[in-house]
């Protein structure tokens, strides 16, 4: 469910960055208030490593031949509480993005939201704790785990759909996208829910104090802050989303808008012949303002220019690769003489 940078637009990316940053800041503040805050940091650090290791272990799903792995949001929240779990998931996602190219730097906000904020700050307090509230036993833990994991994955997958569509990188119709994503994640959710339940029951059996301390320490006043954070998040989303949408509607994207502000005009009226020719060229090819190829439905461009385009593109790539190669050669040559 990790979204990649290439799948999102800067506007969607930064809006969700803002929301996730607010959620992480809220969770940090919440944990700082905890009397056991100091002790929580090593626990959270090792728990993060655990999630990482856990996600690497595949289990076989009976009768299907396929395999799954644990996702971790609900499992972690059950072990160390919602806010702490969110911080841990965020740290894990950052590491996955940096070291494994799983997710992306710009998509980090989206990923933290879909896989961290949703299960840890919403599903866990609103569903999981409601169900286990009456008492921790195998039955309540199992029901809470399965329902929460399924709900978390459904909403998370829905988030992926909305974020991808809002970014405009795919033509996939909304209905088809939903029809693909939701059932797959329902099946994954059931399997993951069962494993989460079994793991939590195992811990409850071997070390009941772990689960009990979490469910007690976060019980106090858990209903009020959730409303507060919901409110804050709605405001942040509407604000950043709204402001960014304003740029986007008047101008294709926020980056161009900010360049316009910085440079005075949208097309960067710089001095010098290179810029003038470039501007002139852009005027002559105005029928395809930004696009490499003409807009759908309009007259297709001349074959000549298409071929030129492809050749030019390939040449640019070769040139770039060649530059890299030459630098490497020069460097290794230096290394040998030195």
């Amino acid at each position, binding site marked *: 469910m990790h979204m990649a940078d290439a799948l999102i637009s*800067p506007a969607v990316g930064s809006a969700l960055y803002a929301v996730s940053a607010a959620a992480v800041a809220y969770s940090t503040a919440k944990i700082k208030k905890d009397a056991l805050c100091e002790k929580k*940091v090593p626990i959270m*650090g090792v728990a993060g490593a655990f999630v*990482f290791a856990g996600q690497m272990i595949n*289990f076989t799903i009976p009768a299907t031949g396929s395999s799954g792995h*644990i996702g971790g949001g609900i499992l972690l929240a059950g072990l160390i509480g919602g806010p702490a779990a969110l911080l841990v998931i965020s740290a894990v996602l950052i590491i996955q993005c940096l070291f494994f190219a799983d997710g992306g730097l710009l998509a980090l906000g989206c990923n933290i939201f879909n896989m961290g904020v949703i299960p840890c700050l919403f599903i866990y307090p609103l569903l999981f704790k409601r169900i286990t509230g009456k008492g921790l036993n195998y039955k309540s833990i199992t029901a809470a785990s399965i329902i929460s994991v399924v709900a978390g994955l459904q909403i998370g997958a829905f988030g992926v759909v909305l974020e991808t569509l809002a970014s405009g990188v795919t033509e996939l119709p909304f209905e088809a996208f939903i029809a693909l994503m939701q059932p797959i994640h329902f099946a994954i959710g059931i399997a993951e829910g069962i494993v989460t339940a079994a*793991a939590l029951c195992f811990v409850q059996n071997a070390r009941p104090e772990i689960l009990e301390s979490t469910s007690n320490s976060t019980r106090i006043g858990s209903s009020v802050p959730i409303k507060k954070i919901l409110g804050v998040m709605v405001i942040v989303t509407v604000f950043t989303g709204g402001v960014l949408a304003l740029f986007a509607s008047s101008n294709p994207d926020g980056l161009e808008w900010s360049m316009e502000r910085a440079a005075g005009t949208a097309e960067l009226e710089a001095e010098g012949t290179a810029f003038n020719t470039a501007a002139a060229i852009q005027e002559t090819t105005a029928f395809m303002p*930004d696009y490499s190829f003409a807009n759908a439905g309009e007259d297709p461009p001349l074959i000549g220019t298409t071929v030129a385009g492809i050749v030019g593109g390939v040449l640019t*790539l070769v040139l770039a690769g060649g530059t890299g190669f030459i630098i490497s050669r020069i*460097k290794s040559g230096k290394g040998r003489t030195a």
Partner: protein
Amino acid sequence: MPNIQNSVQNIYTLENLAAGGTVIHRLHPAAKMLSALFFIVTVVSFDRYAVLSLTPFVFYPAVLMALSETPHLMMFKRFFAALPFCLFAGIANVIFERSAAFSLGGLTVSFGTISLITLLFRTYLCVMAVLILIATTPVMEITGQLRRVRVPAIFVTLFEMTYRYTGVLLEEAAFMHTAYSLRGRSQKGIEMRHMGSFVGQLIIRSFDRAERVYAAMKCRGYALREFHARERKFTARDMVFAAMVFSFCVFFRMVSIDAVINALARF
């Protein structure tokens, strides 16, 4: 299980690369972080048919990898990790956008195909930007920078510890997994009915370890407070690097290469 071993190896190789001492390695972490982010934002800000306009952006990974002596093939393999979801969205475009963009010698290329190629290309550029950052910047420099911009100690320490113990727990999980599969029926994965106790066991080991780590930290006077990361000067060289990346991005964002090529073709 090879999957786990690969991950440990992966962290280890990137760490080794980051310990290098080239021009790029010596740059200020903030310069590299901002440049990578700016590059990614620029790349994703293009529309979904802009494959030609994106071509000049290959200069960024090509030049940086050469300067930092980062092996390209190894990095390229990582690119496949990011692929599945992008391919899914891209192939959907091929199916749903069938109108012809152009035809070449009887072969009609649809807008969907162009957008698929653009998407893959864009994925490649973004993945490379992130990997180059991490292959030239040790983790401690990144977290040091986070401390300097006043990210709370809780989060930075948590991040450092997660990073540190990922390797340790992956190895532990790998041992448990090997011990399991030597006795298990299937060589592939863990049967679902055993997964609960397998994961539960790993959780308990993790918590026990966390207790000992906490004790070891306490012995050394651990108290959660914001300690100041060593200041590091943003030198003229860092400034020049950032300025070059920024202007490179802005230039090729504004002046689209295909327009230049098209106009040249008309002369």
